[in-house]
């Protein structure tokens, strides 16, 4: 019996049937002109088809402003303290017509950032968030140094380093 089983490759046929089934399924569905809602294959055609990110996705650190256009940050230094890799450094200062302390300098060194969101969690004033930007490659070390407005890259807008991706090329 075992001898016969060795001679007849039923096990191999079962495997071939499975891969063959998937071949047929993808072959006849992948190349329809219309994109099916229920995809039969698992390739995400990025960048043509945009990636769906979860609302909680942890991207690059971004600063927020309130309705008056004022920086929300009040320099409590909670984010600087909690940051496990010490990528945030803040210089406290004063600004005319503002009671709360004002960040004169807010440096964010993205090259060391590990995107853990501890800073956002520690912030009691909701003045920073992690946005959904994930195309963060850059050519220079300087591309990863972010600061307030007026510096070469500021933390209120999407990072220009993402410009090196194909998706950004398309937008321009």
């Amino acid at each position, binding site marked *: 019996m075992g001898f016969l089983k060795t001679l007849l490759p039923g096990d191999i046929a079962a495997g*071939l049937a*499975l*891969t*063959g089934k998937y*071949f047929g399924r993808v072959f006849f569905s*992948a190349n329809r*002109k219309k994109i099916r809602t229920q995809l039969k*294959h698992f390739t995400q055609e990025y960048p*043509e088809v945009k990636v769906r990110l979860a609302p909680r996705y942890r991207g690059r650190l971004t600063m927020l402003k309130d309705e008056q256009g004022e920086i929300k940050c009040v320099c409590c230094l909670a984010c600087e303290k909690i940051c496990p890799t010490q990528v945030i450094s803040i210089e406290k200062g004063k600004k005319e017509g503002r009671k709360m302390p004002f960040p004169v300098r807010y440096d964010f060194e993205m090259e060391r950032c590990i995107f853990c969101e501890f800073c956002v969690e520690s912030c009691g004033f909701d003045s920073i968030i992690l946005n959904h930007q994930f195309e963060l490659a850059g050519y220079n070390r300087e591309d990863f140094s972010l600061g307030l407005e007026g510096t070469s890259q500021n933390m209120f807008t999407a990072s220009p380093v993402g410009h090196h991706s194909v998706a950004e090329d398309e937008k321009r």
Partner: protein
Amino acid sequence: MPSQAIPMTLTQTLTMGLIQILAVLIAVFIMVPLLTFAERKVIGYMQVRLGATRLAGGHVGITGPMNRAMWAMGKVPMLSLLRGLPIFIADALKLITKEDIIPAKADRGVFTLAPIISVMAAFGVFAAVAYFPGTLFVFPKGFPIVGGLPFQGFITDVNVGLLFILGLASVGVYGIVLGAWASNSKYPLLGSLRSAAQIISYEVPLTLSLLVPVLLSGSLNFKDMAVALATGQGLSPLAIIPLFIGFFIYLTCGFAETNRVPFDLAEAETELVAGFHTEYSGMKFGFFYLAEYANMIVVSALATAFFLGGHFLLPFGLQRFVPASAPFIGQPSFLFFFLKVCLILFAFLWVRATLPRYRYDQLMDVGWKWLIPLTLVNLFVAALIRFAF
């Protein structure tokens, strides 16, 4: 078959030969890159992904605007089945233009010679393969030099064609062994030893399984064998049994001969990094690559001709049940041959996507303990059928 009916001058013979050789070479040079593209696509589909799509299917380049527009409309780009097709040109260009590195401690002469041996053995085999047992077309009368001469479906009509093929095919392993030895590196060395042992073990059942068609057709001439086996003239209907078993044995050994999964021990990517061609780069590697795929085509062509009925429709000599007068299905056609070759090439890819790899000693085990006895029994059955019925 009287193919030499028309007398030819020496110039005509030489020119005709050159034309036929070039035709086959060009066909193979087109087939091989297409096969690598097919490999990406077929295996991709089997693994529920799309395979190569980026060339001529992406954002940029000539087709870029069209693709972008179609994506914007929420549609898969036109020609989506062929997206990524230019990758076969890109592959070839990459191999040709890449830096050709020869390791410092390598034996330069042999290192260079090895891929040439491999590729020459692989291409030499095509000389004796017949794609069509007669004239494909006749050059028109006004054609310079070769006017009025027939273009045959084979390069030469060797009367011991099969022996020639088997002999030349086993030369190919010298390329692997020498190249690996000349690399003066450890992983290639292991790969070459595996390859040598593998070829020795699998040459035997391969040849034995091919003896079945030889026995049944009573010839060694590629053309005559193909015709005799396909039409099944003078054969007992029982001949289908040894042919059927022989086909699977031959295919198994063919997989081993061409170093394909599940017998890809010589390169065994996850064990020996890249096996015998670890130290090769550029076009030298390209030659090994070319040889492997050319060998696949040869194995498929042989399986088609001897077991699957060659250029007739039905395999295993079943063609006898189709009246020869029937239009198209009763006639020999190059199309049938080509389709069957493609089918077997597809099987190569299919198996690659499905099966794990044997271990070195288990490969020997399968070869010596299972395939050789099986082929011997099969040969005995074939002999019995040939002479008793």
